[in-house]
């Protein structure tokens, strides 16, 4: 029912993710599978299902295994993302969609591996490449740099735009 075997393992996992996968499999008494998602809303997160729950096909690429659990990505998505090496991790928050979570208010996430992110860099020096999407890291990075509020009065828009009610009518109405 599946899919090409992995030539190169392009999925790795943080120690916390490996522990979470083991804990989840032990609690369920059965293995799980991961499928990288895309698109609306929660979009870019990995979905975790009981092994075999999603029927995979010829276009699902097996990136490798995490603690014996397969990790798939759609091959067209893999191409659009430049064949990334992904790192499975855990972060705070509830799992999305129909995904299983590792429990304790956590969910699985993926991020590009640092080395791969650097090699993806197309026209900029390597040192600017990102190293992940860890929430704590981002929080610390962005917490102090945010811009201040809008105390200063903006120039009047009068006459240039329609009023808000009219705009709402315009968006939802038939005009």
């Amino acid at each position, binding site marked *: 029912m599946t899919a090409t075997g992995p030539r190169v393992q392009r999925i790795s996992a943080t120690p916390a993710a490996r522990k979470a996968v083991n804990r989840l499999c032990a609690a369920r008494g059965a293995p799980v599978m991961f499928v*990288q*998602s*895309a*698109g*609306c*809303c*929660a*979009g*870019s*997160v990995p*979905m975790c*299902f009981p092994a075999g729950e*999603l029927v995979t096909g010829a276009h699902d690429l097996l990136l490798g295994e995490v603690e014996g659990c397969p990790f798939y990505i759609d091959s*067209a*998505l893999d191409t*659009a*993302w*430049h064949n990334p090496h992904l790192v499975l991790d855990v972060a*705070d*928050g*509830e*799992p*999305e*969609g*129909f*995904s*299983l*979570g590792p429990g304790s208010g956590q969910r699985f996430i993926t*991020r590009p591996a640092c080395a791969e*992110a650097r090699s*993806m*860099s*197309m026209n*900029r020096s390597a040192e*600017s*490449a*990102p190293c992940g*999407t860890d*929430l704590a890291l*981002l*929080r610390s*990075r*962005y*917490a102090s*740099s*945010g*811009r*201040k*509020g*809008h105390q200063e009065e*903006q*120039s009047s828009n009068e006459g*240039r*735009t329609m009023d*808000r009610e009219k705009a709402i009518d*315009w*968006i*939802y*109405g*038939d005009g």
Partner: protein
Amino acid sequence: MEVLADVLPPGVVNVVTGPGAEIGKALAASPRIAKVAFTGETVTGRLIMQYAAQNIIPVTLELGGKSPNIFFGDVLAERDDLVDKAVEGLVLYAFNKGEVCTCPSRALIQQGIYDEFMALCLDRIGQIKQGNPLDTETMIGPQVSAQQLAKIASYVEIGRGEGAEVLIGGRRADVGGEFAGGYFFEPTVLKGHNKMRVFQEEIFGPVLAVTTFTGEADALAIANDTLYGLGAGVWTRDGSRAYRMGRAIKAGRVWTNCYHQYPAGAAFGGYKISGVGRETHKMMLEHYSQTKNLLVSYSTKPLGLF
């Protein structure tokens, strides 16, 4: 639900809350369900189609987009209201903080007008007021969750790593006061090219990926170079071109000289992995109905064949 209570008969609308892994499959795979509609990400969409196949029921899906908003050079041929409207049309990527499936999150601007048009747009983006979402002066509020905020920030980092240039924004915003620490993100514009991940994946935040094109064929090629096909915008003073583009763009809704308009009756839905089926049109009712043919004979005579 309180508002709906007086409109709909009891039992018509039921809200079931809980973890998706527990209630999602139970609902989607239940043989008591006659039709499923889902809005969300692609893998859950696939799973729902799989469950529907097992029960042989129809399914409609809306799975997101990466909608191009295309600005031809002739937009700046006059100095009139259309210029103002087109500038606003680009800035509509920040509408509802970009948390809209049809978010015009890719702007394609014809080379000859790029500098001038982008300067106008960046000026307008700089005037966006963030803050209390219940204040009518506020233009955009906070993102829906900490997860979403982190995802948006990570995509900006991915864009930077791929060599995209941050023209404005790019950081978490602190609006101060009682909303200090809120999940605000600065309206952001990344300049790059269409092969970058930030041009290919739905970010679901106030992040615009902008690039240039040379002519109509180039614009069309870039517009359609995506896995998605939900919305698109075309801005031009040339009606024939607008029509050609509208016909050729592989998206379920192409707005011409406007964007983010959702009148009842206009079919809405996606091409490609943006989904299956159309909503907000009479044809939507057909997804939820059966066609029955009653073939009645008024004659009492047999056919005479046997």
